[in-house]
């Protein structure tokens, strides 16, 4: 121990002592602070606030105007020095000098054993983050020969690091620990604002990239990750506390109340304000980002759960970031507060209740990303963006292979692909046959294509949705990849500038799918990630053209089904009489609950109708029933191809006649030895997908497909009660009210991607 002259003030003693350990100094002061916090002398937050205040004052003292913050390194250095000074000060005036000496002794002890570098002498679960990080880095830097000796230590430390800073969901951890390095954790922390976890969604992109680098380096080399920043979960709690919003204890309230109160909650969040220290850091990010548009996305802890999906449930907000620095900061702060408010969204609450996730302490971290895109005139957007699934959630033809993956993508911001939008259609691609589509006619292809583009209007500093022909000009760099033109009823690729006519553009992306390396790239990405996750994944991606195609990986997570549904297993022990029908071909993943009505067009009766006009009449009645049953949960079950123009092949309805149904089920009845091919709703497939209506087909006598004819025949027909004028068709059209047949029961259809079963079940 170094001798200090007698009667020196305690603070000077401490200062002089520390001066003797120039390398250990940081760690000594860190431990001093821990003691201060632990013993309640001052909270971490209060100290940090004082550090900033004093730093600002010192800036003035040193002749710099206080409102002008110094550049990042200088300001950090200033903070560090002020923090050290305050640490010494508080320690000296509140805690005994013995304790200070103990800290140094303990540290020296640890360092002497550190020579035995293969082991550590602390409990990782309790150790401070920095110590773990340093230890992990030390292990990772060891010669390869020695790595195996410390591997188990390293794994434990990595698990703790990931749990501390990213996510503690076991499914996520089990994969993340195999791939993340200490360096990654250091990176996450360097990009994190505040403390707490950043959530798996925020880290999913990094994790996916790590996997690609390792397993598909040639693809990783061409992949770009957006610049990202994270706001830790603690900031969310801090925000609630700061604005006295904790009283919004919503989750155990009745749903109606949650719904009624939600607008007030949103308003309160919009009025609230973030902690000045957080704002300060956000300002630093904005300075670094410059004028690039940003997106503020939720990254909640529940979102990492395998098997549940919060896809589209929490909000994301774009910040065009084109205003003055003050405006941009204000907009960014508001966007963050709005995402926070979405944690109280009634739909989320309902979903959590259904999925039994309500008791979990849901916290909201935030992922802040630069929007991937390129400026085109006054607009900013990517050439294409969307979501890709490693397992196709829907198919419409047996040729298509589910395991090759599936895309939903749009020109412009991916919002239109991720969310369902009425009357507009993203490009759906089954990657096994990228150019196959449900539509066959030019008219249908054009109709079921994208007509509106989401983009950022740089001039107006706003997000906009604009018609394709107002945005895309002949000079748009990715024009020929994403668009084709319709001329005289044919859709052809644009190969000459003269073919460009805004009003005839059809966004098919066929050229990109056919002629670029996009399809192989995304297939590699999906299959690699799926095999390493050992679980189907979905990713969000964007493509820009500069002029080379650049693939941007925005997100990766365990695959959610299209509707964000989690599908329970198909019950195996049901009595036969409970089953209504079963399907086994091209079954999607999904669940339809609480079905009260079945609109059943009897195949035999339908085939025996004497002429086409009687069959047209059936279609007309189906259309009316669709309106009458609007408020009910019902399905349609009928012969052959729904929507066929040929009434002999199926009921000749259009989408407008059936849009309230939850499922459109086709019964394929062998006729004279020929089994008609079901349509799977291909006449209006995109409409069905966008509306979340499941197309299903029952191949009678194949693959275990069946229909409970007896039950259907026995059940009472409510057709005439609903529509007295339909009497003459009561043999052909049957409307079955499930609860009338089995009191207290409704029907549900479980579809697990392989098989589907409709059965009656007691109402919950």
């Amino acid at each position: 121990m170094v001798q200090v002259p007698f009667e020196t003030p305690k603070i000077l003693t401490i200062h002089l002592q520390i001066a003797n350990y120039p390398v250990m100094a940081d760690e000594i002061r860190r431990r001093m602070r821990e003691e201060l916090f632990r013993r309640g002398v001052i909270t971490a937050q209060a100290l940090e606030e004082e550090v900033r205040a004093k730093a600002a004052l010192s800036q003035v003292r040193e002749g710099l105007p206080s409102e002008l913050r110094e550049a990042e390194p200088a300001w950090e250095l200033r903070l560090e020095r002020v923090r050290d000074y305050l640490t010494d000060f508080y320690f000296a005036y509140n805690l005994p000098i013995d304790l200070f000496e103990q800290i140094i002794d303990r540290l020296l002890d640890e360092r002497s054993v550190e020579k035995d570098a293969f082991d550590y002498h602390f409990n990782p679960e309790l150790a401070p983050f920095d110590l773990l990080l340093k230890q992990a880095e030390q292990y990772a830097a060891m010669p390869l020969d020695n790595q195996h000796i410390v591997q188990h230590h390293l794994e434990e430390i990595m698990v703790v690091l990931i749990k501390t800073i990213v996510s503690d969901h076991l499914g996520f951890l089990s994969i993340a620990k195999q791939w993340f390095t200490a360096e990654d954790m250091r990176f996450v922390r360097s990009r994190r604002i505040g403390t707490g976890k950043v959530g798996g969604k925020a880290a999913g992109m990094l994790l996916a990239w790590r996997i690609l680098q390792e397993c598909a380096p040639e693809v990783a080399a061409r992949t770009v990750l957006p610049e990202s920043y994270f706001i830790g979960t603690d900031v969310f709690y801090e925000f609630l506390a700061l604005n006295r919003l904790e009283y919004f204890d919503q989750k155990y309230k009745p749903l109606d109340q949650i719904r009624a109160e939600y607008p007030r909650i949103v308003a309160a969040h919009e009025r609230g304000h973030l902690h000045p220290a957080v704002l300060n850091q956000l300002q630093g990010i904005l300075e670094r980002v410059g004028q690039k548009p940003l997106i503020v996305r939720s990254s909640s802890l529940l979102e990492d759960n395998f098997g549940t999906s919060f896809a589209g449930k929490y909000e994301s907000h774009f910040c065009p970031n084109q205003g003055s620095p003050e405006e941009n900061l204000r907009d960014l702060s508001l966007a963050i507060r709005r995402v926070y408010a979405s944690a109280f969204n009634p739909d989320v609450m309902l979903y959590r209740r259904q999925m039994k996730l309500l008791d979990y302490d849901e916290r909201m971290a935030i992922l802040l990303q630069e929007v991937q895109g390129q400026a085109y005139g006054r607009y900013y957007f990517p050439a294409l963006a969307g979501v890709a699934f490693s397992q196709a959630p829907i198919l419409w033809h047996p040729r298509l292979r589910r395991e090759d993956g599936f895309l939903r993508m749009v020109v412009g911001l991916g919002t239109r692909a991720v969310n369902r939008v009425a009357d507009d259609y993203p490009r759906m691609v089954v990657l096994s046959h990228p150019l196959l589509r449900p539509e066959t006619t030019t008219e249908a292809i054009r109709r079921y294509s994208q007509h509106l583009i989401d983009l950022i209007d740089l001039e107006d500093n706003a997000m906009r949705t604009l018609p394709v022909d107002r945005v895309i000009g002949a000079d748009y760099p990715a024009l020929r990849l994403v668009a084709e033109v319709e001329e005289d009823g044919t859709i052809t690729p644009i190969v000459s500038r003269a073919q460009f006519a805004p009003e005839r553009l059809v966004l098919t992306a066929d050229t990109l799918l056919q002629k670029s390396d996009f399809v192989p790239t995304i297939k590699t990405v999906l299959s690699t990630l799926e095999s390493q996750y050992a679980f189907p994944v979905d990713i969000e991606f964007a493509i820009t053209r500069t002029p080379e195609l650049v693939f941007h990986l925005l997100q990766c997570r365990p695959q959610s089904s299209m509707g964000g549904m989690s599908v329970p297993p198909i019950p195996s022990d049901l009595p036969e009489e409970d089953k209504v029908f079963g399907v086994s071909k091209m079954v999607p993943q999904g669940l339809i609950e609480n079905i009260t009505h079945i609109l059943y067009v009897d195949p035999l009766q339908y085939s025996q109708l004497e002429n086409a006009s009687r069959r047209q009449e059936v279609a007309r009645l189906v259309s009316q029933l669709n309106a009458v049953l609007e408020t009910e949960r019902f399905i349609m079950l009928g012969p052959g191809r729904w929507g066929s123009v040929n009434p002999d092949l199926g009921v000749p309805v259009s989408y407008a006649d059936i849009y309230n149904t939850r499922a459109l089920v086709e019964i394929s009845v062998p006729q004279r030895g020929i089994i008609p091919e079901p349509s799977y709703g291909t006449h209006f497939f995109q409409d069905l997908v966008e509306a979340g209506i499941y197309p299903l087909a029952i191949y009678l006598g194949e693959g275990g497909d069946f229909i409970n004819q007896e039950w259907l025949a026995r059940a009472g027909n409510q057709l005439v009660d609903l529509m007295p004028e339909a009497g003459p068709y009561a043999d052909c059209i049957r409307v079955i009210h499930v609860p009338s047949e089995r009191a207290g029961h409704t029907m549900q259809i479980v579809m697990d991607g392989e098989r589907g079963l409709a059965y009656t079940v007691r109402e919950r």
Partner: protein
Amino acid sequence: MEGQNPFLTAQAQFDKSADLLDLPQDIREILRWPMREFHFRIPLRMGDGSIKVLQGFRVQHNDARGPSKGGIRFHPNETIDTVRALAMWMTWKCAVADIPLGGGKGGVIVNPASLTTAEKEQLCRGWVSQMWHNIGPRMDVPAPDVGTTGQMMAWMMDEFSKLQGQYVPGVFTGKPVDMGGSLGRTEATGFGVIFTVREALKHLGLDPAACSAAIQGFGNVAQYAAIGFHDMLGGKVVCVSCYDLKDKKPYTYSHPDGVDPHFLQGITDQYGTIDQEKATAAGYVIEDAGAWIEKDVDVLIPAALENMVNAETAPLIHKNVKVIAEGANGPTTLEGDQLIKERGIFLIPDFLCNAGGVTTSYFEGVQNDMNYYWSRDEVLQRLDTKMTVAFHGVLDMALRQKVYMRDAAYLVAVDRVVRAMQLRGWV
């Protein structure tokens, strides 16, 4: 242009259009070269019993839009690259006129003046016997060109029909009217020029009856252009010009009240020389050859030779000129073109302006096919419709893409060919 490889020039012109259209490389590769070329030797038994072996060519540049179409040239300086260039040019010309034909050209390296009539006939039949498997109304339809005549087309048609064992008049066009030719063909090119001039004036909001024109040349095209401008549009033709065989130099003929093209046609000999005496007697003023270009007129129609509007002459164009209609092939040099563009004069480019000829050739084939022949008026009526539509196709392109009319014509042409290739599934 002298000494320059014409095919490289044609490719450069195409490349320029391809750049403007931003065509992909694979499509350019198809269009920069002819799809098929035939090189063959024609043994010709001369009048003295000796054998002379002549070199023949046929190039089919592109037949995406229909059978190849283009002349056969008998010329001592013929080269394969000239034939290639002209074949490519025919592709664009047929496309811009929007007739369902592709582009071709053929030739023989020979000076026809050195052959007797019998030898010429033998040469024509020899050419067909080499090519007959690869020409035909649905494959390739040749026509007369430099050094070949309607009579020669009739011989060739006869040879082809013999080899086929059936009468096939549609295999060649430009035949004499009495042997399957079309009425109106003589006037077609000149009138076609005037149809486009009429549409151009309409576009510019000018009344043709109040307009004047200066015409260079007084050959077939210029004569009917003058008649058309005078008779059909009611405008005033200020001057024409012609080459005087006796003086071995060209002159410009003007009249204070405007020329009467019918009168002048009456005093022009078969070589295109206007009788100076009779003209002077009728009050015509005989001026320098170059005088036509300096006239204070609304419309200039160079309908004589190549390269007449060039760096030296273009600056002399009167400030009141609003339209230049290129009746001749290639009357404007690059420098001349630049000046026209700078001055904002409305240009009707040659392969649009003089497409009346090839359009009537197409009509001839159509009439041969159906074995029913239209009246002269019917032919000219249809020609008017075709030329008017073609003109507006190019004008639309110029306005839409904001390009010069010459570029627009190329863009229309190339685009139509590309579109045909797309629809046929070639690209």
